[in-house]
């Protein structure tokens, strides 16, 4: 199972401001009544993006200037709450390739990495600079350099951090662990012998 080595992600960006943006906001629970992840993209941020009648509300994702964005920028504790993988799935299926935030809730972070979505942590003042540059010129190319742990935009460079295990997994193309976990089954069976409750 060869996976892409995700050393950097680049593209236009859009800022969805705010702290503690929870996974219920990213994808409301009623859209999880599904047996596949297909089509989740259109429900991303649905309740803050749409009126009850389905018409658009004022929201960065509805702003024509940012329609081509592939990098999502937000605040602190992004993705808190439910463990639903539907949240990063919706983000990815909407067309985003990476997220920049001050920091991320843990389960969301792990779920995103498994889908090959780099989650870059940046300092608040640096996020403000990126957002300002994008706001000024929506065509600004933002480069998240996973390998070098930096974000480049409009001639500026700011540091970005990734959890080291996540950075390693992304740049070495082992962000989806299933292959490695399957390889480890002999070790699993060995260790399981010492855990009586696992006996069949």
């Amino acid at each position, binding site marked *: 199972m060869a996976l892409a080595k995700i050393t950097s992600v680049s593209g236009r960006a859009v800022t969805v401001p*705010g*702290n*503690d943006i*929870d996974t*219920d*906001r990213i994808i*409301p*629970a*009623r859209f*999880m*009544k599904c*047996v*596949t*992840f297909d089509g989740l993209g259109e429900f991303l941020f649905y*309740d*803050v993006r749409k009126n*009850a009648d389905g018409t658009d509300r004022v929201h960065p994702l509805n702003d024509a200037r940012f329609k081509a964005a592939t990098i999502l920028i937000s605040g*602190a*504790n992004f993705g*808190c*709450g*439910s*463990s*639903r*993988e*539907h949240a*990063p799935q919706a983000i990815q299926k909407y067309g985003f390739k990476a997220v920049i935030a001050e*920091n991320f*809730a*843990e*389960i969301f972070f*792990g*779920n995103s990495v*498994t*889908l090959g979505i780099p989650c870059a942590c940046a300092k608040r003042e640096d996020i403000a600079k990126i957002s300002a540059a994008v706001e000024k010129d929506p065509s600004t190319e933002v480069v998240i350099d996973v390998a070098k742990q930096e974000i480049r935009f409009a001639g500026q460079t700011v540091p970005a951090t990734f*959890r*080291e*295990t*996540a950075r*390693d*997994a992304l740049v070495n193309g*082992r962000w*989806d*662990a*299933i292959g*490695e*976990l*399957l390889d*480890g*089954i002999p*070790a*699993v069976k060995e*260790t*399981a012998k*010492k*855990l*009586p*409750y*696992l006996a*069949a």
Partner: protein
Amino acid sequence: MPKSLFEKVWSAHTARTLANGQTQLIIGTHLIHEVTSPQAFGMLRDLGLKVLMPHRTFATVDHIIPTNELVEPYKDPLAQAMMDEVRKNCAEFGITFFDRATGKQGIVHIVGPEQGITQPGTTIACGDSHTSTHGAFGAIAFGIGTSQVRDVLATQTMALGALKVRRIEVNGKLRPGVYAKDVILHIIRMLGVNGGTGYAYEYAGSTFDGFSMEERMTVCNMSIEGGARAGYVNPDETTFAYLKGRPYSPKGAAWDSEVARWKSFASDPGCHYDDVVKIDAADIAPTVTWGINPGQGISITENVPSPETATSADDKAGIIEALAYMKLPAGAPIKGTKINVAFLGSCTNGRLSDFQEVAKYIKGRKVAPGIKAIAVPGSQIVALQCEKLGLDKILTEAGFEWRAAGCSMCLAMNPDKLIGDQLCASSSNRNFKGRQGSTTGRTLLMSPVMVAAAAVTGSVADAREVFAFTN
């Protein structure tokens, strides 16, 4: 060297170290439900994989199941499709399924403990963030995403980095009218909704020693609301007494050897903690949330904050956003806020003791006119226990609807939902925008007895006054 329970369980379940430095951790018990598992089974089929340990995988239905509709097909075809899918997947892969017909169906975090599947010194995973509930038994329990559900199905492991451990010690006796729910709301208010990122919480101290298993579960359940991926209480005699005789508990000679093994997992005196927090039980009051995350809580006697009293720019922005959504006046008392709906239930507070405590005080009282009040047992077994004791009668005579087991109004994936900007006094765990099914619906989290007090008065009330608690 003395070790914490977390370290011991982690090390006992480590199969090997992966190339990126994460651990391939054995997940001894895998709990699945209808919402986050169908895609995982789809992935298994795509990859041509089998379930490695079907005998360690247990399924139920809770999120989508209607609580006032018992006969299939359900009116909602999407709900029925999810029901059919979990049934089909369990049959195909040889997984035990606690379907309604078994009489053992319920919210996954209630079913595991009551069946004796949840045991000390084990690792547990489930595609649901409230899996931390199982930590009440001295297990390390993780909420996971669907790709990890696939990983656990196929390999009985997942890739994970070790967590730090924060010991949260609560000592002393809780004041009358203060419950386990108030303890965890107090902790989250104090440490913040992301204070636990990177940590497992070890709950300890004399307050927890004196807690029943159900009270411990209420606290561990909401660890994730404080950002902690796992939370646990060290196993003790209370734990073993709860587990004795349950369907999946060890029997005969195995019982004694397992209890001895379970005891060995408890944190050693003098072990290292990455952080320690101490709380005096007497400082905890009946707590109510006023905002849009579980950390935005206040004592029932306090006023809703105003932007002027904010401690930082972030705090100020948070207060402004929350007050606008909640339509609450800044600086006003929370007590007296009119409610529309009262909800008793959920994996946080949908157990026998929750309904017993409410019944004790609501007996002979009536839900205020115009208030929709529903009581939803967390499992079919809880429902039966309540019905045997006549608690359902007490609740229905008071004006509550008595429903069938499920997640119900905690998360709006079934017909139980708020309408418009209804305000709900809720014993559940999340007050996020739109959480209870209406994009403008408003949730106030509180203990079950506080929900009962709000139901009978029609507004947020101090249960200690409404039910004449004596200090």
